[in-house]
């Protein structure tokens, strides 16, 4: 969408956009490059949401925003489970005995079990995974077959 300054017959230029509190609308300001007359267009909720649904950030929130993985999903989805982040701790070390026990599981479940036990240990703050922690995780996660 473009706007014309009737006095100067010049196309106005975009200056800034400012989101409203709550993000329901935006005020998008344009100014004439000749006389500096300006106007602001207020978007309605539908227009604002169409822009947001592109997965972009709008206005001041965008200035220093680095793209977060899955930012749009995590920002818009209602009823989400807790997402583990790198700050929840590093991947725990597996002891030799634990790796030996893991190797005894069917080959097609080993990667999955490793991930499940690793996440469990991180959530519990364990630095390493031992056979005892594997047993604890198995019980806690209800993995009776593994």
């Amino acid at each position, binding site marked *: 969408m473009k706007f014309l300054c009737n006095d100067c017959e010049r196309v106005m230029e975009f200056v800034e956009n400012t989101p409203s509190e709550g993000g*329901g609308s935006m005020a998008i300001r344009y100014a004439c490059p000749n006389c500096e007359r300006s106007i602001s267009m207020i978007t309605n909720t539908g227009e604002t949401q169409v822009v947001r649904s592109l997965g972009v950030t709008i206005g001041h929130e965008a200035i220093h925003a680095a793209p977060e993985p*899955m930012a749009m999903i995590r920002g818009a*989805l209602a009823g989400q489970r807790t997402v583990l982040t790198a700050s929840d701790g590093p991947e725990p070390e597996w002891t030799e005995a634990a790796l030996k026990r893991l190797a005894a599981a069917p080959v097609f479940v080993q990667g999955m079990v490793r991930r499940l036990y690793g996440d469990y240990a991180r959530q519990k703050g364990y630095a390493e995974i031992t056979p005892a922690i594997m047993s604890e995780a198995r019980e806690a996660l209800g993995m009776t077959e593994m």
Partner: protein
Amino acid sequence: MADKSNILDQVLAQRQRVAGRLEEIKRIVAIMSGKGGVGKSALTANLAAALGMRGWAVGVLDADIHGPSAAAMLGARGQGVAMGMEGALPAIGMADVRVMSMDLFLEDDNTPVNWQHPGGLASDTFVWRGTLEANVLREFLGDTDWGALDYLLIDMPPGADRFETLMRIAPELSGALVVTIPSQVSHLVVRRAIQSARQAGAPLLGLVENMAGLADIEGETIQELFPEIGAEAFATEMEIAYLGRIPFDPRLARTTDAGRPFVLSYGNTPTGRAILALVQKLEEVLR
């Protein structure tokens, strides 16, 4: 005077993220039908597990946003999504298949996929829902730390509309595997889906006929499940390769519910062999 939001730049950056991520993926295959209930998701899980057991690095992207099932079928439920340094870490399913699905984000079994509409009216959601859900697909592709993959299988939802979106986001698609069942209604819907995929510019790898008979658990016989209506002739008419028929085995339903793909336990049954034969054909076509 600059656009503080840099919306165009943000959109371009999103595309670059997807393109960068897909550089590490050798083959991207969409499993599609157009029709619901033909067993696309169970077939995807079994193909992924079989490829994984054959030594390939495999990922499954569950593009069925409102009916996600890939995580459950691959035994990857309960892991959730973890954020790593290079992106969101996919769940790890049976046969080390990496899985990304909306199911992994949802709080519990009773939580449907609902989008918040800050400051707006719930009745406005139809305006932006389609765009937003197209961007879910983009985030799944571009923000997941898939790592290096030999195969990424995309389990498409019923309907043909999401396919065009996929082609726009991932034009690198290696091809689409089309699934039908022995039913005139299925062929009618699949016919339109094939045309739609063609119009979107997708290479079509072939047609597979699922639920083609009922496999006898005790032996090798196949009983009729649906009337025989000639999927091979249908494939010829549609000018698409016919990749074979997969009989239904009742144990497939049980193993699917248990999150353990059928081929892992029953590879040497008529159904298991048919799935493995399909895997070999895919390997040949995508060599």
